[in-house]
């Protein structure tokens, strides 16, 4: 089975902190994604990547950046965390044309 591992299940950070969310997949998938999941809003795409060192903005990239230095790892960075970034963050990976495999999620609280 493909495994997508998110490094933290819960995080609490202070406003203004720089936050790193890590995601690793172990099946050599080309595509990796970061979503945030909010009640009533569903899943919203933040950033995605089709290859190493490649990134594309999703629907809500403001306040976020990403890094993909290795194929298996896709990091989401909150440059200066704000309270409106409190959310559940989901990482996913896929092969082109196939369904996503999701990580367990990181619930981030910004205080």
């Amino acid at each position, binding site marked *: 089975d493909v495994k997508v591992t998110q490094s933290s299940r819960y995080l609490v950070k202070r406003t203004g902190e720089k936050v790193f969310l890590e995601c690793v997949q172990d099946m050599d998938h080309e595509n990796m*994604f970061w979503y945030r999941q909010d009640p*009533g809003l*569903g899943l919203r795409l933040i950033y995605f990547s089709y290859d190493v060192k490649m990134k594309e903005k999703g629907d809500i990239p403001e306040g976020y950046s990403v890094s993909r230095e290795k194929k298996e790892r896709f990091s989401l960075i909150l440059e200066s965390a704000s309270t409106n970034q409190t959310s559940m963050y989901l990482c996913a990976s896929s092969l*082109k044309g196939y*369904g996503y*495999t*999701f990580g367990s999620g990181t619930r981030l609280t910004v205080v």
Partner: protein
Amino acid sequence: AQRVTQPEKLLSVFKGAPVELKCNYSYSGSPELFWYVQYSRQRLQLLLRHISRESIKGFTADLNKGETSFHLKKPFAQEEDSAMYYCALNSNTGNQFYFGTGTSLTVIP
């Protein structure tokens, strides 16, 4: 532009009753549609995809291109079906998915 609409945020049915979770889409090509499910405290996971034409956990979904719908159905709901369900559409490139806002299903004992 691709768009996926799930009109019901919350849906409650009694155990043993039929259930239908609605999904409509707009897409300028040949769509590939999926249903994902998230049980309490578990990760989001693929339930079924339309090209497989399979039944998973008693659920089926038929792609209706005329009505641009991909409704998820089960004839007899079970308590363990209580979960959040997301409909998703695969983009032209095959790389990116577009998700609906989700429907929270509660099956009442």
